[in-house]
């Protein structure tokens, strides 16, 4: 980051930007160019952020190349790329990635389907306000609390969802979270319960932007409501859904609280997504060097997702911010 390189932009661009241009403004404050004044505003936050993100990142790289000794007085041993090369032979590592993608794919597909369906039904209906208020409630809940709540509902002796599944005759076994094939469904259901509302709210915001004329034109051409949805509304929703997918995917590996609480990755690693594995390696086995190497691979994925997200923000054709003031 180079704050001291704050510079004039080429003239054409600033004309285009119009209102943003600042170096023409009479320099009244402290007789200094505007950019210095803005630099002093920017600096504290950037320095603090560097201290709590770049400095740890440097540490992360250092740790990933060492065998970290936690006992006081012992110095770390140089390990070269051992921590990384060991990942290739680590079965749990590969499985962690697979489980992460499986978990995310399940969560996202159910959430998107349900969320869009609910939003389309609710759009412009009398129930919209009521449902939006209700939607807020699960989203505001701490993931840990949601985890406990669902553990309670799944409990084999007094859980209501357990009772429901048994009564419906779907569940044969005596436990949901202890069963290899049901545990994944269990944690996915928790995520779906908590975050489908967000998808619905995003979709509702998107539906409000669907150009009315296109819908009407399509109807005049003889399309019914279903055809109308697929050929007009849905294409207009894509940018919104893309944002929703990226954000939810990101959160799926950013927050592992529910999985940690509900199954801890079990049974038999059925729900051990990579971040959960990383948690175990770092804070259960205290192999911080290996943990750092795994964290590094996760950060790479983050950077890729970040690139995708900023691309969406920059894309001039996207319709999401079309209501901007300028």
């Amino acid at each position, binding site marked *: 980051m180079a704050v001291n390189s704050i510079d004039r932009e080429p003239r054409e661009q600033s004309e285009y930007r119009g209102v943003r241009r600042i170096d023409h403004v009479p320099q009244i404050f402290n007789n200094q160019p505007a950019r210095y004044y803005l630099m002093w505003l920017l600096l*504290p936050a950037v320095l603090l952020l560097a201290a*709590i993100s770049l400095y740890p990142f440097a540490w992360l790289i250092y740790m990933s190349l060492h065998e970290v000794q936690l006992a006081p007085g012992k110095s770390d041993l140089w390990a070269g790329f051992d921590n990384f090369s060991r990942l290739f032979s680590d079965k749990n590592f590969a499985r962690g990635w697979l489980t992460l993608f499986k978990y995310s794919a399940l969560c996202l597909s159910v959430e998107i389907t349900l969320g869009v369906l609910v939003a389309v039904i609710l759009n412009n209906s009398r129930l919209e306000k009521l449902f939006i208020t209700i939607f807020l409630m699960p989203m505001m809940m701490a*993931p840990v609390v949601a985890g406990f709540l669902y553990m309670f509902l799944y409990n084999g002796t007094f859980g209501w969802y357990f009772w429901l599944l048994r009564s419906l005759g779907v569940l044969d076994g005596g436990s949901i979270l202890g069963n290899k094939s049901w545990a994944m469904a269990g944690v996915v259901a928790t995520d779906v319960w908590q975050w489908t509302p967000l998808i619905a709210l995003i979709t509702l915001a998107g539906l409000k932007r669907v150009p009315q004329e296109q819908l009407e034109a399509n109807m005049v051409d003889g399309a019914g*409501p279903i055809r109308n949805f697929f050929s007009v509304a849905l294409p207009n929703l894509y940018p919104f859904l893309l944002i929703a997918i990226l954000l939810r995917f990101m959160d799926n590996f950013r927050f592992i*609280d529910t999985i940690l609480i509900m199954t801890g990755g079990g049974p038999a690693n059925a729900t051990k997504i990579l971040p959960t594995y990383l948690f175990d390696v*770092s804070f259960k086995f205290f192999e911080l060097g290996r943990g750092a190497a795994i*964290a590094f691979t996760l950060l790479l994925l983050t950077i890729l997702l970040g690139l995708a997200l900023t691309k969406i923000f920059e894309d001039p054709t996207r319709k999401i911010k079309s209501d901007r003031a*300028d």
Partner: protein
Amino acid sequence: MASREIVRYKSPTRTAFSVLVILFLIVFFVWTVLPLAIMLTSSFKDLLDAFKLPAEGDWGGVGVMFDFKPTGAHYIELFTEKHFGEYMRNSLIASLGSAVVSVFLGSMAAYAMSRAEFRGKKDLLFWIISTRMAPVVAVMVPLYVIFRSSGLVGTLPGLILAYTTFNLPFAIWILKGFFDNVPYAIEEAALCDGANRWQALRMIMPLVAPGVGAFIVLCVLFGWNDFLFASIIGSGGAKTLPVATAELVQPVKIQWGSIMAAGVVTTVPMMFLGLLIRRYLVTGLTMGAVRE
């Protein structure tokens, strides 16, 4: 949609369709609200009532859920024996402290980012958003080592700093989008009238104040709901509500009544805050990508 002006005639398919739609809405409503209702009722049940279930397949027995004598024992236990008052204070200090620091520094930086054009601005923004997106566990590995050597583990300042790792980039990013929407012409007009820069900045304060307030609330929410940082970095001296809730799980018996009560205590304040900032919530949760 535009279909309102078009007259619809009744047909059996249409009726069946609308019945299906209504059924779906009811199921979705129950699916969303039922867990909350169960949490609330269970927190007021004593142990015997909480464990009552109808026999398998006995659909008429669902009424058991609401057949209980309410007791506040779990709440009283939490706040007298389990020191939840103290944990609540810790949660509040840590999340509010981090929110205020983040939004204060963040709004300054965001204002500068929004008004200035400089080389490397895009890269700076990318760095900021990727800091926010980094998985909590991945950040925590090095942060834990650093905090441990500087004695910040188990203290509230340590926790505030830890929460700032995700709140500060969030605040900068989202407030930048927010300032972008305020026309620079307002400040320009003030400057032409002879105001200095700070006075010009004060002109747009009333425009941005509600948003800044809402994002403080959102930062509080992120900090309040955090579990991983609190359990590793706050372990020991700075126990927050989610961690205290998790500690109610004991190997011998899980105290479900207390856990449900703790869940209510943790969740209800945040729900009210959520309703309060409802207008900004979707914007906040989508990093400013979606505006309502």
